């Protein structure tokens, strides 16, 4: 399909535009607003928009400046003919006319249908489906601003996948497809694949899990149910078997219990029978033992009694000896007591005598004291008289007088200091002072204004200095003088020296008196007379005592020292006596204790003897009783032998049973009770087990097991069949996918090769597109550029690179698709390389040239056509659109 020429009338800014297209490259240049994009849209719409379409698609074509309806005419070559297409877009009234140079002329819908057939598209786009319009030949029609988009992104519809696949199939790859036995895909294939997928979807979810409610899920559930039911049935059967086994064991055990119980009963019966024998044997044996014991006891008691009586006699003798020794000791004690009394009397006499001597000495001392005290008292009386004669002047009075004297003396000195001295040195005439003459050599002190009268009537008034102060001083002196005089009169002394002498004399007398008092104080003068008087009654009492002791009163007492010596001697003797008495007392006490001990032992022996006598009597009685009961000991022994033989026979039988019974025989009654209890328990258990057998047996457990086993096997078989079917479906779908994948690589190959040709022309020899991916449903995808070993997604590339790679792909697509359009297809590029840098420009030109060489008709719209001008001149034509003037372009 090749565009030859176009004519636009009343299309937006174009009132009328006519232009021809070169077979190779047509460069359509022009500044902005020259109507390039309008031309691109008009060419697209005349081919694909229905002439009768209404709405936006048509409105966009309408010219605001030129009256009338938009009309587009296109001349093109397709299907081996030259076609003239004219569409007048007038909404529902639009017209379409298609005529060929072969004479075919079509109008309206038939023209539209034919046109679609020529373009190999489903049909013209109606107004209401205007959104689909851009998808038509989107791979061949690059609008302004869309050059950087991924041509594959729009999906299969955007690049006519069906036709492309067909072309790929028919292209040089057909041989390769055959060789690899790779299949292409048909609607039938898809239908079959769809059916298979549907069947698989019945069983599995998209994630490969068993779908809920699916036959497989139901089969699995049935299998699980059958498994559970089988287990339950098996458990019931096992329970039944177990119950039967229990019953068997219970029966066995009951038999064993019965046997053991019988043995035990025999054992107990025998035991009961041998018990009285045993008791009688024990009775006789104990009687015999008792008899023998009594005899032995009797013998022992008698021996003991004799021994006791001997001991009692010895004790009697010892007690007599003790009593004698006690009497002797008592006598010695009395003698000692008498001597002691005598010595005490002597001690009393000596004591009285000593007291009397002491009294005499005390009396002498008291008389001496009294004499000395009287002497001292006389001296003190003399001193006191002297003191009374002296005036009462003490050191305080002397101090007061001395102070008064000093004050007067000071007042005097002050008056003299302030007075004016007048001395008559020499004169012959009388000189008087205040009337009193003054003699030569005489001087006077003037303490007041004094008139000095000289001979000749001369009078002079002489005033001492100081003003009134002299008067105050004179007054103070007078006061001091008065005070001194009053004190002297009070003391009766002319001056302080005399007063001091008197005070010192008084002081000496006071000291003497004090000395006397101290001397008197050393004498116990108080109550001396009373003490002396008190001595007399004491003396009388002592003398009386002496008289009572037989001593003559008038006999002078021996000296005190002698008395004391005699007292000491007496005291020593008394101490010795005391020790002897203590010794004797201890002896007496010991004797007493010995006697008491003897008495106790005697009493005990006597009691023991009494007891023995009683015991002997009792033994005798018991022996008599035994004899009366059992006859002689010999007879008793014979009876015992008979019983022993009987018992031995019984024991042998018991031993035999014991051997059979084992440890159970140790407590037969207990064991019997245990067995009875166990039997009871077993019978209860047997009832329970029988009940279980009855109830489980009624359920037919064996049948249930077999039925559920069969159910399980069937369920397993069903499940396995479904699983096999599912696996088979999965296997099939996998095989389909693999076959598709295999064919996809063959589809991709020619496109990849064509694309690589343009990339090489672009100068990207080292670059390559990564393998495109292909699926029949999704078409091609994953446009990537591989440089070195790194792959870049289309979106990751720069703007310029995206434009160039997209253009390369479009050229490759056009190259491959042109086979379906008589070997030629137009590729419209509107400002498709605006982001490509000048360095890459040459590559772009080479790429476009390669496209033209491969049969692609390139319509290149650009606002900077200069870069492409040489190529256009070489490969085709160049058209310049001018911006519309006022009356249209």
């Amino acid at each position: 399909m090749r565009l030859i020429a176009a004519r636009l009338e009343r299309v937006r800014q174009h009132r009328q535009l006519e232009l021809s297209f070169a077979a190779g490259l047509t460069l359509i240049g022009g500044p902005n607003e020259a109507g390039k994009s309008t031309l691109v849209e008009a060419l697209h719409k005349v081919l694909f928009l229905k002439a009768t379409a209404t709405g936006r698609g048509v409105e966009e074509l309408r010219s605001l400046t030129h009256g009338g309806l938009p009309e587009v005419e296109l001349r093109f070559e397709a299907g081996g003919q030259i076609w003239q297409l004219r569409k007048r877009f007038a909404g529902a009234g639009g017209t379409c006319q298609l005529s060929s140079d072969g004479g075919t002329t079509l109008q309206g819908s038939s023209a539209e249908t034919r046109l679609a057939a020529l373009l190999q598209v489903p049909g013209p786009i109606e107004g209401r489906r205007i959104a689909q319009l851009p998808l038509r030949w989107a791979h061949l029609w690059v609008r302004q601003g869309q050059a950087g988009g991924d041509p594959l992104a729009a999906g299969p519809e955007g690049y006519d996948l069906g036709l492309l696949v067909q072309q790929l199939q028919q292209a040089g790859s057909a041989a390769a497809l055959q060789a690899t036995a790779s299949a292409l895909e048909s609607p039938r294939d898809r239908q079959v694949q769809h059916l298979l997928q549907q069947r698989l979807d019945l069983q599995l979810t998209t994630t490969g899990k068993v779908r809920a409610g699916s036959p497989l899920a139901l089969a699995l559930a049935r299998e699980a149910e059958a498994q559970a039911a089988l287990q339950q049935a098996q458990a019931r059967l096992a329970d039944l078997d177990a119950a039967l086994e229990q019953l068997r064991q219970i029966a066995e055990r009951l038999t064993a219990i019965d046997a053991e119980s019988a043995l035990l009963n025999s054992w107990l019966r025998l035991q009961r029978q041998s018990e009285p024998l045993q008791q009688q044997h024990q009775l006789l044996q104990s009687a015999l033992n008792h008899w023998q014991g009594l005899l032995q006891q009797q013998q022992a008691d008698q021996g003991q009694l004799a021994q006791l009586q001997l001991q009692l006699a010895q004790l009697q003798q010892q007690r007599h000896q003790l009593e004698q020794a006690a009497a002797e000791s008592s006598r010695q004690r009395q003698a000692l007591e008498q001597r002691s009394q005598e010595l005490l009397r002597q001690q009393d006499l000596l004591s009285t005598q000593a007291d009397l001597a002491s009294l005499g000495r005390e009396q002498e001392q008291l008389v001496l004291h009294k004499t000395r005290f009287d002497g001292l008292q006389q001296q003190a009386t003399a001193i006191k008289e002297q003191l009374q004669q002296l005036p009462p002047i003490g050191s305080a009075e002397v101090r007061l007088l001395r102070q008064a004297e000093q004050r007067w003396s000071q007042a005097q000195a002050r008056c003299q200091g302030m007075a004016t001295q007048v001395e008559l040195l020499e004169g012959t005439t009388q000189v008087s002072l205040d009337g009193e003459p003054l003699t030569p050599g005489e001087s006077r002190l003037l303490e007041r204004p004094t008139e000095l009268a000289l001979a000749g009537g001369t009078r002079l008034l002489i005033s001492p200095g100081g003003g009134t102060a002299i008067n105050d001083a004179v007054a103070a002196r007078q006061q001091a003088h008065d005070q001194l005089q009053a004190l002297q009169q009070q003391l009766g002394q002319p001056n302080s020296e005399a007063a001091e002498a008197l005070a010192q004399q008084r002081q000496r007398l006071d000291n003497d008196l004090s000395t006397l008092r101290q001397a008197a104080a050393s004498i116990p003068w108080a109550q001396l007379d009373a003490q002396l008087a008190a001595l007399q009654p004491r003396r009388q009492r002592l003398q009386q005592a002496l008289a009572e002791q037989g001593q003559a009163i008038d006999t002078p007492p021996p000296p005190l020292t002698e008395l004391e010596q005699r007292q000491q001697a007496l005291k020593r003797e008394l101490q010795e006596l005391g020790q002897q008495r203590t010794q004797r007392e201890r002896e007496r006490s010991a004797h007493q204790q010995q006697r008491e001990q003897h008495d106790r032992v005697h009493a005990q022996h006597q009691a023991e003897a009494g007891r023995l006598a009683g015991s002997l009597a009792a033994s005798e009685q018991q022996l008599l009783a035994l004899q009366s009961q059992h006859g002689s000991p010999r007879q008793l022994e014979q009876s015992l032998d008979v019983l022993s033989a009987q018992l031995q026979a019984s024991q042998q039988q018991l031993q035999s049973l014991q051997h059979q019974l084992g440890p159970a025989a140790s407590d037969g009654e207990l064991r019997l009770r245990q067995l009875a209890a166990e039997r009871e328990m077993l019978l209860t258990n047997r009832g329970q087990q029988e009940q279980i057998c009855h109830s489980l047996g009624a359920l037919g457990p064996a049948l249930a097991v077999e039925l559920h086993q069969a159910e399980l096997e069937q369920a397993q078989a069903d499940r396995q069949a479904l699983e096999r079917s599912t696996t088979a479906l999965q296997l099939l779908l996998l095989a389909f996918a693999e076959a598709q994948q295999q064919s996809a690589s063959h589809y991709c190959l020619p496109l990849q090769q064509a694309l690589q040709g343009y990339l090489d022309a672009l100068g990207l020899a080292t670059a390559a597109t990564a393998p495109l991916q292909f699926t029949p449903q999704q078409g091609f995808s994953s446009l990537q550029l591989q440089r070195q070993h790194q792959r870049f997604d289309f979106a990751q590339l720069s703007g310029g690179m995206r434009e160039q790679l997209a253009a390369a792909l479009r050229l490759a697509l056009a190259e491959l698709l042109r086979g379906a359009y008589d070997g030629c297809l137009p590729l419209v590029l509107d400002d498709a390389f605006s982001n490509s840098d000048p360095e890459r420009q040459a590559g772009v030109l080479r790429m476009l040239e390669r496209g033209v060489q491969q049969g692609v008709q390139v319509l290149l719209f650009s606002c900077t056509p200069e870069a492409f001008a040489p190529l256009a001149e070489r490969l085709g034509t160049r058209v310049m659109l001018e911006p519309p003037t006022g009356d249209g372009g």
Partner: protein
Amino acid sequence: MVSLVPTAITVLHTADWQIGKPYGRVKDPDKRSRLRQVRLEVIDRLAAAAAACEATAVVVAGDLFDAPTPSPSDVSAVCAAIGRIGCPTVVIPGNHDHGGPGSIWQSPLLASERQRRAPALLVPEPRQPLELEQLVVLPCGLQQRHDSNDPCGWLDQLDWSRLPPDKPRLVLAHGGVSGFAGSDLDDEHPSGPANLINLKADWLAQVDYVALGDWHGCKQVHPKAWYSGTPEADRFPRSADYRSGQVLAVTLQRGAAPRVSPQPCGAVGWHPLQVTLTSDADLNSLEQQVEALLGGRVGADLLLLELSGQLSIHGQQQLDGLLQRWEAQLLRLKRRGQVGLSADAAELQALAQQSDAPLVAAVARQLQQQLGSGDPDGTLAQALLELHRSVADACA
């Protein structure tokens, strides 16, 4: 004048009736019920056989019931059927219906049913000789399912002099015998080394016949000892010499060798059939073989069909049709083996050459190639069948 020669008598030896056998693997409950019913019906044929040979007694060597606790209805039915036998029927418990406590043999139900319907049904005391008018029966039944003791062990201690000298002595026992025991006997309930009977020469010399039960086929294991087998077959024979569905008419005379005559009495056919299908044409032959076996009978046979070989898809469908038909006709169709899909079948060739579905063709070719190398689990054949079906559906 009294003859000094002991009288010869005939005893009918049978065993393993296994009344109440569930046949759980038979899916159809009616057929299951039918199979159980025929086990009861055979008793009447035994009665007829007993009458025909004027049997002194019928001895049942264990496993009269399938379980120690059979259903009351089975007990009643058995008693009623035994009641129709014209001579005493002596029964011992076997491993299936052992005589331990809790079992049917100790239940009041059996006692009352026996009294009411089968007075001639005799269950001897364990290990106690049972003296009949013309026969002494030495019962060696099982008191538990698995007994490690020899069921006939008690005969070692038996005081033979106390038995009547002129009456034939019959040991009635259930279990395996040395050299022929365990799983050989009862493959459904192998008893292992338990219940083993030692046919000791000592006591064998004292008896005239040993009537054994447990093995469901008829088999002689000693000049004096036989397994009668079950009177109504209950499994597919595993070997050619396996015979069941019979009863033994045993003529006994004290001190003489027994004369044993097997007599068929089973009604249901249990047929094993092994066929290899090499092509679809073999299906006709298979059909003829089966028809020959069944002879047009409906609901009276069981078939164990063991198939191998390969068929085309069409052949598979044909076989499915046949199997469905036989399944309806038979009491049970048990299948074994698998018929594979023939890799070079015309349908597969056609599938692989689908021109309007190249992808289908490619997938079919690939699967076919793989199928040629083997398909142990049948997945490839299944996949091809699924593909074939889907293509057919798509074309429809």
